[in-house]
């Protein structure tokens, strides 16, 4: 079955003023849609059509570049929309808060590490919070790679992903990637991250 563009779990303007309406419209409706369309074209008629996007990513070294680029693009953006929400931000609670404290010492340290992972990723890519051997860790990947991929430098199960392609912030923040990353924490959906952590374990 062909992959489909997931609907956004909120309106395009719901993340204003931190992420603007036009950016959300183009990011979801054009960029993500193109990844889905190109992924479907790249796997048409192959066995990959029967697999989940996670299973494709886990064996990505067996596929040609268009599957890696567009399959990654589809998985990463699908996660990204869910880990943001209107009226979100704040502090995580419960098991997630405990896991963050034990891995990083504090929420602020985690944020700083993710901000650094995002700002130091040269060119296009993603910053990640992953579960690795039951513990939380921070890493980044180039382009549309992700930590599920067997070719990733750092592997694990992503529970939070931040898009640092210029298209994610350029209309509103232009060259100021650090400002975008700072604003992201106002829309981070910790409930979803907590849910992702539970599923990853």
């Amino acid at each position, binding site marked *: 079955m062909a992959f489909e563009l997931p609907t956004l779990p909120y309106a395009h303007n719901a993340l204003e003023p931190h992420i603007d309406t036009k950016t959300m419209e183009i990011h979801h409706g054009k960029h993500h849609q193109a990844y889905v369309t190109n992924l479907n074209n790249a796997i048409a008629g192959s066995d990959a059509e029967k697999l989940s996007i996670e299973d494709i990513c886990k064996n990505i070294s067996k596929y040609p570049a268009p599957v890696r680029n567009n399959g990654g693009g589809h998985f990463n953006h699908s996660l990204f929309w869910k880990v943001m929400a209107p009226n979100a931000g704040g502090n995580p609670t419960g098991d997630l808060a405990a896991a963050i404290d034990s891995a990083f010492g504090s929420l602020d340290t985690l944020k700083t590490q993710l901000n650094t992972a995002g700002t130091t990723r040269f*060119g296009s890519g993603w910053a990640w919070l992953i579960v690795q051997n039951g513990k939380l860790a921070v890493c980044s990947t180039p382009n549309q790679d992700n930590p599920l991929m067997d070719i990733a430098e750092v592997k694990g199960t992503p529970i939070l992903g931040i898009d640092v392609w210029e*298209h994610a912030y*350029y209309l509103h923040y232009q*060259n100021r990637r650090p400002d975008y990353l700072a604003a992201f924490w106002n829309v981070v959906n910790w409930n979803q991250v907590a849910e992702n952590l539970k599923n990853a374990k």
Partner: protein
Amino acid sequence: MTNDRRGFLKKSAAFTLGAVAAQALGSANLNELEHISESIQQLSAEAAIFTLPELPYAYEALEPIIDKQTMEIHHSRHHKAYVDNLNKALDGKNNTRSIEDILSTVSKEDKAVRNNGGGHYNHSLFWMLMKPNPENKTNPATGKIAEAINSSFGSFDEFKKQFSEAGMKRFGSGWAWLYAENKKLKIGSTPNQDNPLMDNAEIKGAPLLALDVWEHAYYLKHQNKRADYVNNWWALVNWDKVNEFYEKV
């Protein structure tokens, strides 16, 4: 060399510069001269080995093809950051080498030198390789490079098609290139701020024409439509400059 000797060389070099500056200012006052010499010394100790080149045209000069805001941010923010970060990465280690020279052995340097040195070189080239075309007239290759393009790629249209494709297919951030490898014209692309001068690049040769396909080069005007940016950009190519580079190879 002892520290004293190095200090002396540095000071005398700064003094010479100060004297030149004072002369240029039409000042013969010795106190003032020493003051200038000191501030130049301070400047060269703290900052710029490489500097941001001025654009050879105004920010709005490439309208309607590339908008003023894009040019302004691209030059004064992105390119400026590459220059600043390159100087920071070299941290006084470079006093004499040209950017081309540094890139030719970049595999031995920090990643920051590769990224920002590439960024500085590529953008310096990119600005030179464009010129205003306010009426958006068709702009085919001219001179010797036109002949070389025809004999290498069959026709100008075929060349344009292949070069545009190189820019379109570069996934993520990067550059499309026309370059000369052993005097042969080739088309290729590089990721991020890599370029064909780098000893660790996938393609190697002398750059003749460069197109920035980072999203920052077109996003304000074209958003996700990189193809529109690439297709429109051809009207801006400064073929005189391309010929100048071609004559050197």
